[in-house]
């Protein structure tokens, strides 16, 4: 046998060994991009069944409804608008389509409701002598009878450390109670939600569940996995806490409210939260547009979705009269709770 034959004897079969692990990319055409977007949501979005129950969402019907429009668009701007309208059917603030010229979003969950938070009112209450520790802004509210601690966390995108929390709680330790204002907190790092909640419980508590998709089917979910909050091994707050919420409390902040309300001394005051009870994933279309969507659903302790928000214990809105007078109705309600309602 010639040497070349020896080499070929091994080369040919080994080259045939690896069967391809591959996917068929959708073509970068009007129809290809439409099908790619619809398929991404169909196979990965986690609330299709839930929203079918809640308001009758039929994702197959959505395909038929928008396919005709998608086939007739003449510009990418029209195409973007059709895609944005289709995604809006999901009624989800975690769903976005991003191109170089626009960011499609669904913001009805807060834009169609009272803001219940005002920068100008907030500035009146905060004054100029407040402290800043990482993403925490804090101060004392002192009235005739009591001193109340106040922490504002406007975002979980600006981090705060355990040390930040320890110092802030230490500096507010003389207060009768604590107001934790999460209004307009649109979310960010989920780990901050857990970090914050761990300061307000004395024991390990069940706060909810989460799941993830295990396949392409709308109902292909993992088992419910428990979520706990464990008490921080250090300075914790054991006095009453009032958490302030509005419709712009979303995503990780929504999760935080869900965790905090399971703690012993916590009361939630304000408006229903905006929701966003699904951990988002990202994907993309053949034309390069990015798409974001909810992928892993969170649930409360009763295994109920928190996608459409969490009701407060006390529903309070900022009235237009109070707004005119420079009074934050929700914040005043919380202060009154400490001075009159709470012991």
């Amino acid at each position, binding site marked *: 046998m010639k040497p070349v034959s*020896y080499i070929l004897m091994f080369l040919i079969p*080994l080259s045939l060994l690896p069967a391809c692990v591959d996917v068929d990319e959708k073509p970068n055409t009007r129809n290809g991009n439409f099908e790619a977007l619809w*398929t991404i949501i169909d196979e990965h979005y986690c609330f299709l069944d839930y929203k079918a129950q809640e308001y009758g969402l039929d994702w197959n019907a959505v395909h038929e409804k928008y396919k005709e429009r998608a086939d007739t668009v003449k510009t990418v701007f029209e195409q973007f608008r059709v895609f944005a309208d289709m995604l809006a059917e999901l009624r989800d603030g975690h769903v976005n389509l991003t191109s170089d010229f626009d960011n499609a979003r669904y913001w009805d969950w807060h834009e169609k409701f009272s803001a219940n938070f005002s920068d100008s009112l907030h500035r009146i209450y905060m004054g100029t002598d407040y402290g800043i520790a990482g993403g925490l802004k804090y101060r004392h509210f002192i009235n005739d009878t009591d001193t109340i601690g106040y922490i504002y966390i406007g975002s979980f995108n600006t981090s705060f450390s355990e040390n930040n929390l320890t110092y802030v709680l230490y500096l507010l330790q003389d207060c009768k109670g604590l107001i934790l204002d999460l209004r307009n907190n649109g979310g960010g790092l989920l780990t901050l939600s857990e970090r914050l909640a761990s300061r307000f419980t004395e024991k390990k508590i069940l706060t909810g569940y989460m799941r993830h998709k*295990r396949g392409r089917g709308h109902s292909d979910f993992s088992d419910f996995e428990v979520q706990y909050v464990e008490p921080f091994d250090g300075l914790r707050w054991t006095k009453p806490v009032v958490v302030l919420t509005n419709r712009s409390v979303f995503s990780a902040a929504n999760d935080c409210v869900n965790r905090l309300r399971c703690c012993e001394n916590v009361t939630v005051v304000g408006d229903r939260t905006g929701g966003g009870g699904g951990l988002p994933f990202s994907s993309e279309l*053949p034309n390069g547009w990015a798409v974001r969507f909810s992928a892993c659903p969170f649930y409360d302790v009763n295994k109920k979705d928190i996608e459409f928000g969490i009701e407060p214990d006390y529903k309070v809105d900022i009235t237009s009269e109070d707004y005119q007078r420079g009074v934050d109705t929700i914040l005043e309600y919380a202060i009154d709770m400490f001075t009159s309602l709470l012991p």
Partner: protein
Amino acid sequence: MFRVLLFLVFFVLTVSAKAQRDTLLARNITTTSNMIGIGGVNVLDTYISPEKYRGTELRFISMTEKRRLGNALSYQRILQLNLSLPHNRARTADYLAGMLNYSWGLHYNFDLLDEKRLNIKLGGLADANLGGLYSTRSSNNPGQLKAYVNITPSVIASYDFPLWRRVFSVRYEADAPLFGVMFSPHYGQSYYEIFSEGHTDHNIVFTTIGCAPSLRQMLSVDVPIGKATMRVGYVGDFQQANVNGIKSHSWSNAFMIGFVKRFRMSKIR
């Protein structure tokens, strides 16, 4: 008298030369090669995107082979590093991709043809891989950790041939994993769930050639240049997996160039 003296001198020199040869015992032949290369890469990971990313890859390979003289067994160690920055079709996003691979294994040698010009090695490697993908655009599932170990059958064939009064060598190696263990999130499982919440779901996966059909192959030619030997070649690295509902592949084809050193470890008795 002069003849006797000349005979004695010749005898002593001959004997001493023979004795000197006897004290140098050649034990091992070690061949090392270090190569760098550049090529094209095609990357797919449906956990991050249904799109395939294509681009340029840089690769480094360090290989050591040792064989004891007179012994049919040889061992091999390979260290590979590859880095790439592939982009999607629309060029609106990039991956940062990289993989470190370390393989160690044994081969049984068949020395064939006249003067053992053809050498065929059959054996296996323990093959460890650590790397990942990072999407420069995605914020919530931006990366994918790649970590897996395999038991990998391996075949090497090398053939020495004379050309221009020098000895050239052509060499082919193919390593195809038979089975192993791989880390992988599940289809829609987030890294937050796995690492922050500790919720595991079949994240350590037993893989076989059926669900992770992969192949690393290298075809090279050793070219003697002066006292050095240059190695030029082609590397095809096809890493694939279809586990937990996630399809992934990294297909690399790279041109490699480097130098080979072959030396003999001897022991003085």
